[in-house]
């Protein structure tokens, strides 16, 4: 497999976004229409009460050349959750998929904690207007912490294969204080759940499906899966669990694994398929991959430096 980088395709600071969002276009996820591609992303406003960030979902519609912007969302795609709800302080990311006439949006909702910064869980919201707006099926999550997945359930990717709904997602294995001066950092791994309706999920309960390459303290995030030539390929991002924000040698890179049976995954990223480009927008970091097909081509959306503060880019698979 070989990816051809097509460069950065969207910069949020060049557009007027709803909810007073000015920076960040993180975790781009595509919904393909007949004559355009809608790309959802998470952008951020600043909470006036405490100067902390709030993540909101927005989208950009692009021509199928994936270069020209048609429009950005003019209004709120999905409001944040209510007081005390799992998604009160942000939705980041949202995975979208068509199901019949509806579009299902699987959200990762953020809520702030006291001893640690945050917890997350996965919610479901449904759109009946082709993805312009989404309504939650309830105030609570469809997938949350459980016996052996104690925290930070999020970052899901959902795909129906045969008549089984598959969800790949991440779960926290715990928080750790790596140094006395720094706040606690989190460690998370990729897991898997199945469902027959997309609402009631059965987890494999803490089975880490992707082996560590950086040791036990590797954090793995945002899995995305595609079938190419009878083989399932998963892309995700991974990093060290502390000193990863500004240290480019410890920050996110894109990982890869493949599977024939959706049970056993072989990790295959010793030799990265996609790497940083010195001097470019993705010189220090590669993260939040999303793989999709459009007009018989396979593309990978992803974020570069600073976790996508200045937008996202694209690569195309060359065969």
């Amino acid at each position: 497999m070989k990816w051809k980088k097509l460069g950065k395709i969207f910069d949020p600071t060049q557009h007027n976004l709803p909810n007073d969002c000015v920076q960040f276009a993180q975790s781009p996820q595509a919904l393909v229409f007949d004559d355009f591609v809608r790309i959802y992303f998470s952008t951020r406003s600043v909470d006036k009460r405490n100067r902390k960030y709030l993540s909101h979902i927005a989208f950009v519609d692009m021509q199928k050349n994936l270069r020209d912007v048609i429009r950005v969302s003019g209004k709120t795609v999905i409001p944040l959750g209510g007081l005390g709800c799992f998604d009160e302080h942000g939705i980041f990311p949202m995975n979208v998929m068509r199901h019949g006439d509806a579009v299902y949006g699987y959200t990762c909702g953020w809520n702030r904690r006291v001893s640690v910064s945050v917890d997350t869980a996965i919610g479901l919201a449904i759109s009946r207007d082709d993805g312009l707006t989404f309504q939650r099926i309830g105030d609570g999550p469809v997938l949350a912490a459980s016996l052996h997945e104690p925290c930070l359930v999020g970052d899901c990717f959902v795909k129906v294969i045969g008549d089984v709904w598959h969800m790949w997602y991440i779960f926290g294995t715990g928080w750790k204080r790596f140094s006395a001066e720094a706040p606690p950092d989190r460690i998370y791994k990729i897991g898997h759940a199945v469902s027959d309706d997309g609402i009631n999920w059965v987890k494999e309960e803490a089975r880490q499906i992707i082996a560590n390459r950086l040791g036990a303290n590797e954090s793995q995030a945002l899995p995305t899966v595609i079938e190419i030539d009878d083989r399932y390929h998963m892309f995700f991002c991974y990093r060290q669990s502390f000193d990863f924000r500004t240290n480019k040698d410890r920050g996110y890179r894109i990982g890869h694994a493949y599977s024939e049976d959706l049970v056993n995954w072989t990790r295959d990223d010793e030799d990265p398929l996609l790497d940083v480009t010195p001097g470019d927008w993705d010189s220090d970091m590669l993260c939040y991959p999303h793989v999709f097909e459009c007009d018989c081509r396979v593309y990978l959306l992803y974020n570069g430096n600073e976790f996508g503060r200045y937008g996202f880019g694209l690569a195309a698979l060359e065969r």
Partner: protein
Amino acid sequence: MFKWNKLGKVFTPQEVEGRNWLKEFAQAPATLVFDDFVRVFFSCRPSADENGQYVSYSAYVDLIRSNLFKVRHVSQQPILSLGGLGEFDEFGTYPVSVIRNGEEVRAYYAGWTRCESVPFNVAIGMATSRDGGETFTKLGNGPVLSYSPDEPFVLSGPKIRRFNDVWYLWYIAGRNWKMIEGRAEPVYKIRMASSSDGIHWNKVNKDLIESRLEEDEAQASPDVFFANGNYHMFFCYRYSSHYRGRENGYRIGYASSTNQVDWMRDDAKAGIDVSEEGWDAEMISYPHVFELDGKTYLAYLGNQVGRHGFGLAVLDGKLE
């Protein structure tokens, strides 16, 4: 109407010495009967921290079976440790409900974490004991029952029961948070789930008890007891605001059911109310019914939701 004869307060946490984690509160009594004593599990607190915040632990007191007003022993340590950094039970394990399962004792407990926009969140964990309930090992470091679309937060007050080899968990789930004079106050309702193993649960996803005081009535401690062909539930309920005094505070309610799921509320039948004066004159809450040597007892909390301990009443007649 049932006729409960109040026997008075049985246990006062302030009288216990040498345990800095047990300074005040003895909340949500839950019993386990032994040959010559009754082990009553409860939840307690050390002194508040410098910010006035509490953590809560669970423990037990052994009462002499032939005279429940005599304390035989108080646990030397909490029965459960608090959870680790960022875990659901990092700041409290309260309340706890226990049940025998063959040689082991299972505890279902509510674990507390602290949040930024609201004071806390709660989910239900499970632990097992192989020494008759003296010490427990958590089944995992996450919850056994957690949030879902219709139960978004504050899953608390578990009461574990088993009827005809099916496990039942009655509990409460938060409905909304109300801002009252700048403070977020939770509204919660009584719910249930069933299970074949006590680990994997199917939620019924409905409010079991109709609200009576107001739409935002808060309901807690759904204690279910089977007797004479019916399921009897004693629970407590209060107004959603200004509930820390006599006026709007907790009272004990009652409902009955023939099938565990459909309940007929009839508080007039509960048969127990606040006293004119004394330890339970302002509020009564967290009822727990148990049978012992041919009598039916009700353990419950008095003023300040059990800050000064719990008491007992005995039924004159039968639950029917």
